[in-house]
Each structure stands twice: as structure tokens, then as C-alpha cells.
């Protein structure tokens, strides 16, 4: 049992902890508007982490220094470290921030270990290294996981945003598609459109593809299925916004949209859709003239 780690954990705890905290503050990004409560919380967090790390150093040291079979990191330390790393990830800080904080503590402990006269460095040095290596790994892993979860959540909410079904006119729906259409989005588009068709008793739906970067066979197939389904509900579909390059590419790919009505621009598509429900856009003058006659 190491007396040094015990010292650091108890009698010299506040001195070492203070040194680490000031190192953390020096390395922290300069938030001019960071509320004092946040700083205070990160201090208590750091204290808890310090205690947990030293407890782990004291209690979990393997009996044989050369045994590479690392014991599992204690559960409470893992939880603290995850929080330590997840918070900066959520705030959009660099992954260097939590890791350099951890490594600052390692430098301090290392210095103490080397300076201490009575320690058996042969066993303690490798153990310190080993523990901090696994902690650094865990920190980085947590950071990555947190970011990935954030990205997944954001792309989900983006997907929600990007498939609005608009009621353009009585019995005419407009579905402007923007971005990448994958299987999941295609399913969502179909669902929303079909629901809206029934709700509004739509006769025509306009699928605007101006914002779809690439129409390959998979996207085309998704679109065809959507169009087939709307047809079963008695709605005709007008496709608009396929670019000249897109049209060329589609024919080269050998994809035929068969009897789907397609117009180059949304404007032409709207005119077509209005015709289908026996409406047209006319100048105000003409109407006055017929009304007056």
C-alpha cells in the first residue's frame, strides 16, 4: 500500500487539488460570460474526480506490477469521468479540453511521485501510467459518443423539418424535397404525403425536386413508390425541378418515370396542377373585363 497516494488523498489533498484547479482554470477556454455557478460546479466536479482517481490509485493497484491484466476502472470513477468528458462535448468544446485537464493532473502526480523519497517507483510509476492511459481512452471515447449522439439527434430533427407538406391551393399539395433522400426519409415523405392527401382530399400533388442534389436509381425507386401510392389514393403527381443534367443522367441510367407528369420548373408545375383542378392564374384586368360585360 502506497503511503504517497494516501498522503495525496488525505493530508496534502487541498494543496495538490488547488494546484490542479488553477491549472484547469489556466487551460480552460476564456468564457467571458461563463456564469459563476458553472465554474463552481466544475470545481466540485474536479474535486470529486480527484478523490475518485486517488481512491482508484490506492485501492485498485494490481499486486503484481508487471501484470498487464488491468482491473476494471471503478464504477464511480467511470461515471465521473464520463460526465467530465460529456459536458465539454455538449458545449461544443474541443476534445483536447477534458483530456488536457486529465493529463495536467497526471503531470502533477508524476512529479510528486518522482520527488517522494520513500516510494517504490518500480510498481507505482507503471500503475499510474496504466490508470491514466485507460482514463484518457475512456475520456476520448465518451467525448466521441456524446458528439455522435448529438449529431444523430440533430439529423433526426432536421429530417422532421425538411419534409413539410404544403397546401398550395384547394385540392393541390406541394411537397418541396430538399437534401438527401434515403430509405428512412423516403418512408417519411410517403407517409406524410399520403396522410395529407386524405386529409385535404387532394387531386394533385406536386413533388418539387429542385433541392435534391443527386437522383440515382435508389432515389428514383423511392420516388416511384411514393407516386404509385398516391395514385392509389386518386391523386395525380406532377414532378418539378429536375435539372437538365439530372434529366440527362436519369435517361442514361435507363430510368423511366413512365406516365408521371413532369415539368422543368415549379412555376410550370403549378400551372399544370391548377389546370387539373380547372383553375388558372389570370390577370386581374381580364376578370374585371368579363365581370363588367
Amino acid at each position, binding site marked *: 500500500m502506497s503511503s504517497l497516494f494516501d498522503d495525496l488523498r488525505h493530508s496534502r489533498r487541498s494543496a495538490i487539488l488547488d494546484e490542479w484547479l488553477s491549472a484547469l482554470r489556466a487551460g480552460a477556454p476564456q468564457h467571458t460570460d461563463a456564469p459563476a455557478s458553472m465554474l463552481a460546479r466544475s470545481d466540485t466536479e474536479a474535486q470529486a474526480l480527484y478523490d475518485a482517481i486517488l481512491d482508484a490509485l490506492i485501492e485498485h493497484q494490481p499486486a503484481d506490477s508487471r501484470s498487464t491484466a488491468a482491473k476494471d476502472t471503478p464504477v464511480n470513477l467511470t461515471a465521473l469521468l464520463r460526465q467530465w468528458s460529456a459536458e465539454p462535448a455538449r458545449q461544443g468544446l474541443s476534445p483536447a479540453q477534458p483530456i488536457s485537464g486529465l493529463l495536467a493532473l497526471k503531470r502533477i502526480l508524476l512529479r510528486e511521485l518522482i520527488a517522494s523519497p520513500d516510494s517504490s517507483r518500480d510498481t507505482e510509476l507503471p500503475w499510474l501510467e496504466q490508470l491514466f492511459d485507460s482514463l484518457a481512452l475512456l475520456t476520448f471515447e465518451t467525448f466521441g459518443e456524446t458528439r455522435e449522439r448529438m449529431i444523430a439527434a440533430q439529423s433526426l430533427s432536421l429530417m422532421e423539418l425538411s419534409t413539410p407538406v404544403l397546401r398550395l391551393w384547394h385540392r393541390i399539395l406541394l411537397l418541396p424535397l430538399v437534401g438527401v433522400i434515403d430509405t428512412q426519409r423516403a418512408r417519411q415523405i410517403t407517409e406524410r404525403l399520403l396522410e395529407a392527401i386524405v386529409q385535404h382530399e387532394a387531386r394533385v400533388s406536386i413533388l418539387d425536386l429542385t433541392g435534391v442534389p*443527386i437522383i440515382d436509381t*435508389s432515389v*428514383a425507386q423511392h420516388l416511384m413508390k411514393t407516386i404509385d401510392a398516391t395514385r392509389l389514393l386518386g391523386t395525380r403527381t406532377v414532378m418539378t425541378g429536375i435539372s437538365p*443534367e439530372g434529366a440527362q*443522367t436519369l435517361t442514361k441510367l435507363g*430510368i423511366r418515370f413512365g406516365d408521371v407528369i413532369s415539368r422543368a420548373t415549379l412555376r410550370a408545375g403549378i400551372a399544370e396542377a391548377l389546370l387539373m383542378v380547372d383553375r388558372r392564374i389570370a390577370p386581374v384586368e381580364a376578370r374585371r373585363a368579363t365581370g363588367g360585360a
Partner: protein
Amino acid sequence: MTSTPFGQRVEIGDAADIVTARRAARELCERLGFGKADQTRLATAVSELARNVIQYAGTGHCLIEDGSDALNRRIQVVVEDQGPGIANLEQALTYGYSTSGGLGAGLPGTRRLVDDFQIESAPGLTRISIALNKPF
């Protein structure tokens, strides 16, 4: 994704990588002075091939390179995977044939989209090389 002055390597593992790969292809295409139609052609072809990798092999990679010489600008893309391979190449290149309920237009369509098309496939390695050429 790693890039060198001459090309880019894009790992393909999920649907987002399809977007990365075809964007990389489109960018290099544009930088080499290909027109918009050519950019769309190549991006669509890369999209098809990358999707095949994910659907049939799971993972793979895609190498996008500048192959220009004194006479022609040339962009070439190699898509490789270590999947089970294509059992019958002739069928796979026939329009309307699909083992997955797709349109069966992907491979034959891609072949028509590009200027050069080479495919080799065996269990454990499928490699498809495509290229666009345009004289200076």
C-alpha cells in the same frame, strides 16, 4: 477521408459516406474543369457504386483520382469492397436484373453513365473502376 494532391480516399460504411464520396467526386471533377453535366454523371455513378458497397458488402472504400495526361483530362474512381462478390457478372450488368428488389438499373446504368467501366469480382474482392475523359 484522406486526401493527397492527386486524389482522395473515402471509406464507405454507411449512408452518410455515400454523400461524402459523391461530393468528393463532384469537387475533383469541377476542379479538373469538367462541365456540370459531367459532374452530375460522375457523382451519380459514384453514388450508385457506393450504395452497392453498403447494400451488398457492408463496407469498402472509394479512391478518387486525377488521371489527366497531356492530351486529356481524366478523373478516375475505383470502388472496392471485400464482400461476397457478384455471382454472375453478366446478369448483374443486365438492365432490370436485381437480387435485392431494386430497379436493376444501378450497374448497367452506371456503365452507360461513364466513359470507361471495368469490373472484376470474386468472393472477397470486388473492384469497379470508372473514369470520365475530356480532351483539353
